[in-house]
């Protein structure tokens, strides 16, 4: 009997090719598109529930001769992803909703649907690889999405198939053409956060918390010494490392170096004030046997950032602290700290804060 696999399909080229490859490999493929949010009738150009994407996924499944379902995960996604997104911005942080979507929505809630239909496997179009129960970076460094997958439960790895993770994006498109998936073969990459309709995350914050919520109210731009340099229009519009939208008139380029949600201040400073020698992350999850204090690791503090070398100086209560071998710029609270060993993903956490001084290894 062929093994059944539930494929999460967005209607894009990656997940469509993933499904197609699994069909050619002989799996009993079932396609599913998750309905995660609804803009209602306010956005006629972008129909309710990403209708076009659903339709594309359904048509690809028809072409592949496999069933397709639309799964309504709206309320769970709203709770686990959208509400956290808004709460994090309110705390002056810059969240990555895709991480929580992978952790909670795709590889937990969708996995339950897989159980319900006797699917042994769950597959997505992520550019990452699973080998012998271990998560690895995607083969294509330009596309590698392993950074977003650190939060999934370790046991899920043994049920995951990532069929496009071992190829480049160009190869994926070529496969789409080869298999006659012309409908989606040249579809543009989605860059936005799926539930932020026009790239303006403050609209979601305003919708959830009200337009006059604290994080969208005017507040001061300050230097580290407390000197005020004008007014900003809501700290939720800023992220650590940002250069755009800051007051001018300084001799050197200025950046957001910290957000202080308690006072509503956005702290600005020159490039060297962005440098961190240590980083603390919480909500830590391990995809391998947990490493120990003193272990050397590679860390990545942002998608596409070059890995930096560091040493684990503290591992406790779901938190880790890393001492960085050399200074790393713009460590943004809310982003992910992902730990690697070469291509292996060891685990990760949500960045709580950076340390400007090198943390000392506890004896």
């Amino acid at each position, binding site marked *: 009997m062929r093994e059944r696999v539930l494929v999460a399909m967005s209607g894009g080229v990656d997940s469509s090719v993933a499904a197609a490859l699994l069909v050619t490999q002989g799996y009993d493929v079932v396609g599913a598109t998750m309905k995660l949010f609804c803009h209602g009738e306010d956005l006629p150009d972008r129909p309710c529930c990403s209708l076009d994407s659903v339709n594309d996924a359904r048509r690809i499944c028809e072409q592949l001769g496999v069933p397709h379902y639309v799964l*309504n995960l709206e309320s769970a996604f709203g709770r686990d992803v959208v509400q956290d997104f808004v709460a994090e911005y309110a705390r002056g942080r810059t969240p990555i909703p895709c991480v929580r979507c992978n952790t909670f929505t795709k590889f937990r809630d969708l996995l339950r649907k897989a159980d319900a239909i006797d699917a042994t496997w769950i597959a997505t179009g992520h550019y990452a690889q699973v080998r012998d129960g271990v998560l690895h970076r995607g083969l294509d460094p330009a596309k590698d999405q392993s950074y977003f997958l650190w939060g999934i439960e370790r046991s899920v790895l043994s049920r995951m198939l990532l069929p496009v993770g071992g190829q480049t994006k160009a190869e994926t498109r070529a496969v789409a053409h080869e298999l006659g998936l012309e409908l989606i073969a040249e579809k543009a990459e989605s860059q936005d956060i799926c539930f932020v309709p026009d790239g303006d995350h403050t609209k979601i914050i305003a919708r959830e918390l009200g337009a006059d919520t604290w994080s969208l109210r005017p507040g001061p731009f300050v230097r580290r010494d407390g000197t005020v340099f004008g007014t900003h229009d809501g700290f939720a519009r800023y992220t650590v490392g940002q250069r755009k939208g800051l007051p001018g008139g300084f001799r050197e380029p200025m950046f957001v170096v910290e957000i202080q949600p308690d006072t509503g201040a956005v702290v600005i400073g020159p490039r060297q004030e962005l440098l961190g020698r240590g980083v603390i992350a919480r909500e830590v999850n391990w995809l391998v046997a947990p490493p120990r204090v003193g272990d050397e690791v590679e860390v990545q503090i942002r998608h596409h950032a070059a890995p930096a070398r560091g040493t684990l100086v503290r591992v406790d209560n779901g938190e880790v602290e890393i001492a960085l071998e050399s200074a790393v710029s713009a460590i943004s609270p809310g982003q992910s700290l992902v730990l690697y060993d070469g291509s292996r993903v060891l685990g990760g956490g949500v960045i709580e804060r950076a340390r400007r001084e090198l943390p000392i290894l506890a004896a």
Partner: protein
Amino acid sequence: MPDPVYLDHAATTPVRSEVLEAMQPFFGARFGNPSSVHRWGREARTALDEAHERLARCIGASADEVVFTSCGTEADNLALLGVWRSRRGAGRKAVVTTPIEHKAVLAASHQIEREGGEERLLKMSRDGVVDDASFDALVSEDVAVCSIMWVNNEIGVIQPIHELAQRARAHGVVFHTDAVQAFGKVAVDARTTPFDVLSLSGHKIGAPKGIGALYIRRGTPIEPLMFGGSQDRGRRPGTENVAMAVGLARAAELAAAEREHEWNLLAAMRDRLEAALLEKIPDAVIHGRGAPRAPHILSISVPGTDSESLIMALDLRGIACSAGSACQSGSTSPSHVLSAIGVPADLASSAIRMSLGCMNGDACITRVCDVFPMLVDKARRLAAV
């Protein structure tokens, strides 16, 4: 895999061979426009007039009281908006309807509110029947139109349309009923039941999708929704869909002739299915069970399951059912009908609608009685982990 089982006749039915045959000439040689004066036009016009007469006869009406529409939704919209707009000037600004209507009626009612009217929603009993006291309280001299569906599309409950229509009309209220699920199951006769306006849909009774009809009793005030030519006395302008009108008339004749036989057949299957499922799943809940129900719809909730997963699992075993109501994207969302009759959210989220019809026989029922409880067991085991 065994033969697939289609248990979604309330969603749509296949076109009957008799209907297809009746429509065929109008896709070919008899293609004329019924408004044309020449022989092609006359041929089409004759067929259209006959379709009016034949459909009218099926519901005890006169030919001029029947308007063909593009679907049941259009018929419902024409009924509510058309009647309300023509009466709003006369001190009748309210519309009364139930919270368990099809979206076509509910959305038209919301539109009335946007146009300055007042929407009043009736209370329902836990079995899905209109609450008498609520009806008396809401239906009064300031109401333009009252719309109550005859047979509910999710739970199959039959409303006492005869009494409700009588009581509404006593207040000078125009009474509309959406009979899309009722026609072919209950007796629909304008001579004996005092409804003023009634909606029908073709594809629930073996005619194609894309054709519906509205019965409008003579003398009922109604405005058109669209403006154009004088087709159908100006009530529904646009070149008539002759082939489909003929198809609907043919399907209606067949459904009316077979109605009692069909009722008995479907009721026997439904009763067997219901009894078997309740025996194997004693805590299952059948919605609307305490009220009179049409024989083709069975709405069942099994605590501790979710309908989305069950429907997928059933489909993968070749059994087609549906949940509450389908969103445009095809995903399931909580049923407004079940929440309106007080079904708790977790129970409503497990509701499965099985709707029987021409594609079912005893073998289908046997198979569902085997597979459904087995899938329920599995779903509950997973939920317990």
